[in-house]
């Protein structure tokens, strides 16, 4: 990859990523970019490599080829805990909150960073609890006792505690009731207003098109279509082609 492609004005750049699971060639040259504060959607059927793309960015899976750049600097191959501290937040598909830790302790894992003053910590906690009042009620409860929707809230709140520049959101509305889904929608908007970029992987096409500025559509391990979210409607033939049953 040429270094000339590195653009410090872009928050995240993914260039020609190839990733394998054993012998499976999951990512076959994925390229995308996210500008600071942008909400970018990543659509596609199950198994096309959307989650793997997020995992590759987060360093949870090592690509065999290609690069990931953060603000113009290469972060390919860096360990996940390093990336978290550089400002990438990750909310995985199955939430994966720490079930035996309390809500408070879950949030603490993001708060206990170097250079965060006690006031900052308190402010961040307040923010989390104001956005997610349910979590405030349950702050001393073990994560595993929360409902599915509450766990999703916790997973997002936890990532927010990192004060990330970008949050990688993997299918946040999966398995949630409509009331929860609209809450997620609101959170995405709020985060966007705060200037946090979001790379949103979703199966819920209407929500994605509403919430994002741009969308990528993936199929078989690479990006097939890319446009502004406003340029495309739910019943667009492109959508039908890549996402239809």
């Amino acid at each position, binding site marked *: 990859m040429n270094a000339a492609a590195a653009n410090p004005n872009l928050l995240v750049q993914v260039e020609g990523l190839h990733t394998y699971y054993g012998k499976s060639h999951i990512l076959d040259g994925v390229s995308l970019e996210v500008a600071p504060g942008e909400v970018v959607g990543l659509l596609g059927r199950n198994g096309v490599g959307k989650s793997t793309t997020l995992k590759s960015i987060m360093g*949870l899976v090592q690509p065999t080829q290609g690069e990931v750049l953060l603000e113009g600097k290469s972060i390919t191959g860096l*360990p996940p*805990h390093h990336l*978290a501290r550089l400002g990438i937040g990750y909310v995985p598909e199955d939430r994966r909150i720490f079930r035996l830790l309390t809500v408070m302790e879950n949030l*603490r*894992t*993001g708060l206990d960073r170097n250079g965060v003053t006690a006031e900052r910590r308190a402010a961040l906690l307040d923010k989390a609890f104001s956005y997610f009042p349910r979590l405030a009620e349950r702050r001393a409860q073990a994560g595993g006792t929360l409902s599915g929707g509450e766990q999703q809230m916790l997973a997002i709140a936890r990532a927010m505690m*990192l004060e990330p520049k970008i949050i990688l959101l993997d299918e946040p509305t999966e398995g949630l009731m409509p009331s929860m889904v609209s809450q997620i929608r609101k959170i995405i908007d709020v985060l966007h207003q705060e200037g946090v970029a979001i790379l949103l992987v979703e199966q819920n096409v209407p929500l994605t098109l509403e919430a994002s500025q741009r969308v990528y559509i993936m199929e078989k391990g690479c990006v097939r279509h890319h446009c502004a979210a406003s340029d495309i409607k739910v019943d667009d033939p492109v959508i039908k082609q890549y996402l239809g049953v």
Partner: protein
Amino acid sequence: MADFFQNIPFDLLLIQTVNGIVTGLILALVASGLTLIFGIMDVVNFAHGELFMMGAYLGVVVLATTGNFWLALVVATLLIAILGGALQILTLKPLIGRDPLNTILATFGISLILQNFALWEFGPVSRKIEEPIGAYFTLFYLQYPWYRIVIAALAVAIIGGFWLFLKYSKFGVWIRATTQDRVMAQAMGIPVPWVYTGVFAIGAAMAGASGVLFGPLGSINHTMGLDWVLKAFIVVVVGGMGNLGGSIAAAIFISLLEAYASIWVSPAQAVIVSFVVLILTLLFRPTGLFVATPK
């Protein structure tokens, strides 16, 4: 029948009960370190007994230089913690992700080196740590040394302190998060490789501290590690693997039985007691004697 009752040495039983509890608490501390390392890092620390032994020897050295038992305890514990951390970085970090059998072998290698180093450095003759407190008190109608009670109290304090640390401190949260979900812990910015080093260092510190605490109770020599690590393993199995509370109960239980047994048989044979307990546990309650319901 009355004869039998007259022959039971009540004095001895009483003393051995307290002795058993004291030794049991030290054993509990050793076993806690072992369980910690195994539970969090999936590493069977074969060298745990040698860390205990080195702690005891370091205690001897510091005591000889400063004359202060408490200083010896603190310094030896710190030094063993550092030793543990260094050993983990050098030999166990490269093995992360490999078959756990590799770590058994690596820690076994470490135990060889430490044991022979101790033999080389300190010689084959046993050492002893002087009792830090000479006073005795009256236990019912017998005289019992205060220092043993103090040692037991210290063991409890260390275990308790560690438990509090695990529950409330930042590093404690990190450890618990890493145990539950290593991947997400990393995604949250927790430097998991360093957590492992820290955990090993803490486990080593617990072994080292136990060594110093045990010092005044028995003789210190380069082979003492094997006995202790074996008993610690037995405690871990009998107490229910990964069950901290169970380990403590098991440690005291086994030590009490051994203490009673040594009234009638030699210490070398009293050791069989713990083996028998292990066999019985494996036969009837393999998930642990002190676990609520067998799984």
